[in-house]
């Protein structure tokens, strides 16, 4: 038997902790590999009288929810500030609105400064919901009829996918800007920055790297020019939270081998520690989908994870709502309320907490098994946004089952991700060929050395 003692574990650090397991002076409890220990006492629960009073006081003193509606605009005709034309569009290269008649350019204000969305995150208490992120009223119809301010005609807008329409009589553009409770008008919009040509280039490059094993029908029908610019609905969340995690960690104390020849085996000795970590943190602009369809990331049923993967966006640059930013693009309206999204946000905050404490247990060189966790969400602020995505969609049927494969481009950062249907038979043959070549080489080697 050979023995290789490891260096002793690092010295104790006490609290706050900093990545190395401490060695207590007192004798350890009975030696068991994993002894469950009582977690730390929980903080005041919502049902506690003291906690209830504190919450009532906080609610009474909480500031009113930010009213983000763009008061300068209304539903219907909204004119160029200089010439009065209603033909207004986004100019992606500059992120500015441009009047197609007089070429005047302007922009709405950034909501980060206008409504103070970047401030006070570490002191947030309660749930603050901006006016554009309020609950959706199921009785409000998606189809809105506008009276044209130019000629008096009635024009219909389907807000599920469009936020403007042209009057068929006088050619004025009519836009939806008032925050009706159907989820169609968010608090803010992040304008497209990448142009259609740039998106086509990125999608072609992405698919071009994946030609060899791509399905033949996908290759034959690949038309990157068909990419669509779409504003997708997201909830952007600031959070003030505390998280506790409890588990066990192990520190290697000795490595040794027993036996000889083919029976030689390696063994390890380790000290077992009970661990508790607490992290207080503030999260700025956590971005989650606010459409039920898009938030379903079941990879067996869809490729929504592709759209999720192109996050994050530079949400700090989002501007106040103006439906003219959507001209020439489609949009998908929000259909989930804060209440429905909250469990997903809490889950992500818990994951962030686990990521934050990882460095503090780095000294446990045999790893850590977290067994219990808790998130106390002290305060959160919810802002709804439309974020810009160039989306190439290909519907592929395989084994009688169809699925939309997306290639998505973040229209701000250019980050591109996609799912390309595979020619599985061809891939299998290639894998079998590689396996056969490897196996032949191995057999030749073994024969030569016997």
């Amino acid at each position, binding site marked *: 038997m050979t023995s290789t003692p490891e260096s002793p574990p690092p010295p104790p650090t006490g609290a706050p902790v900093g990545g190395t397991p401490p060695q207590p002076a007192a004798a*350890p409890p009975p030696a068991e590999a994993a002894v469950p220990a009582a977690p730390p006492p929980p903080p005041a629960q919502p049902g506690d009288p003291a906690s209830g009073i504190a919450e009532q006081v906080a609610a009474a003193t909480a500031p009113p929810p930010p009213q983000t509606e763009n008061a300068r605009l209304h539903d219907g005709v909204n004119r160029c500030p200089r010439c009065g034309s209603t033909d207004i569009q986004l100019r992606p290269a500059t992120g500015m609105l441009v009047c197609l008649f007089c070429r005047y350019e302007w922009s709405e204000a950034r909501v980060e400064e206008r409504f103070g969305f970047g401030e006070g995150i570490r002191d947030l208490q309660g749930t603050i919901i901006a006016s554009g992120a309020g609950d959706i009223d199921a009785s409000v119809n998606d189809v809105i009829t506008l009276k044209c301010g130019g000629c008096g005609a009635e024009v219909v807008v389907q807000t599920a996918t469009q936020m403007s329409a042209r009057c068929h009589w006088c050619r004025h553009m009519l836009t939806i800007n008032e925050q009706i409770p159907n989820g169609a008008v968010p608090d803010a919009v992040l304008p497209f920055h990448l142009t259609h040509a740039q998106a086509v280039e990125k999608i072609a490059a992405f698919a071009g790297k994946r030609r060899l094993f791509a399905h033949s029908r996908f290759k034959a029908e690949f038309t990157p020019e068909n990419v669509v610019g779409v504003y997708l609905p997201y909830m952007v969340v600031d959070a003030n939270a505390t998280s506790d995690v409890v588990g066990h*960690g192990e520190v290697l104390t000795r490595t040794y081998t027993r036996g000889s020849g083919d029976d030689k085996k390696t063994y390890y000795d380790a000290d077992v520690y*009970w661990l508790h970590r607490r992290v207080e943190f503030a999260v700025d602009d*956590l971005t989650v989908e606010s459409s039920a369809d898009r938030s379903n990331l079941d990879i067996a049923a869809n490729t929504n994870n592709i759209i999720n993967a192109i996050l994050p966006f530079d949400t700090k640059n989002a501007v106040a709502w103006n439906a003219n930013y959507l001209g020439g693009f489609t949009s998908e309206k929000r259909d989930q309320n804060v209440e429905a999204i909250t469990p997903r946000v809490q889950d992500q905050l818990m*994951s962030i907490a686990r990521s934050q404490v990882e460095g503090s247990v780095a000294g446990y060189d045999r790893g850590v098994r977290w067994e219990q966790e808790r998130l106390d969400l002290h305060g959160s602020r919810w802002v709804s946004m439309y974020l810009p995505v160039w989306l190439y969609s290909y519907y592929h049927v395989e084994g009688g089952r169809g699925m939309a494969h997306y290639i998505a481009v973040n229209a701000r950062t250019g980050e591109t991700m996609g799912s390309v249907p595979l020619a599985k038979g061809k891939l299998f043959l290639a894998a079998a060929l590689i396996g056969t070549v490897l196996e032949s080489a191995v057999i030749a080697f073994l024969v030569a050395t016997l």
Partner: protein
Amino acid sequence: MIATIAATVLYASSGGGDGGGELAFLLAGPIGGAAFYAYVYRYYRNQDKTHRFEQETIVERKAEITGDDRKVGENNGTRQRRIEGDNINNHRQRVRPIE
């Protein structure tokens, strides 16, 4: 990709660390082929990709991390390289709530 396959084959040929190397060496072909299939599948379909919000979201720690570390025993003579149920890197795996 080639490095991944080579590492997989090398690991197979070493029998995962202990003895039985020659026999495991014969698994190099099937393992290499399967690794190639899995690599290409992942490269084309990207089913493992999602937003890395843990790293890509702005997080400010309000205070230093606090906690306790108590030695509760020893785990001697184990053949496992890591603690059972190691989830230190698996931030998205939810565990039991603290009541």
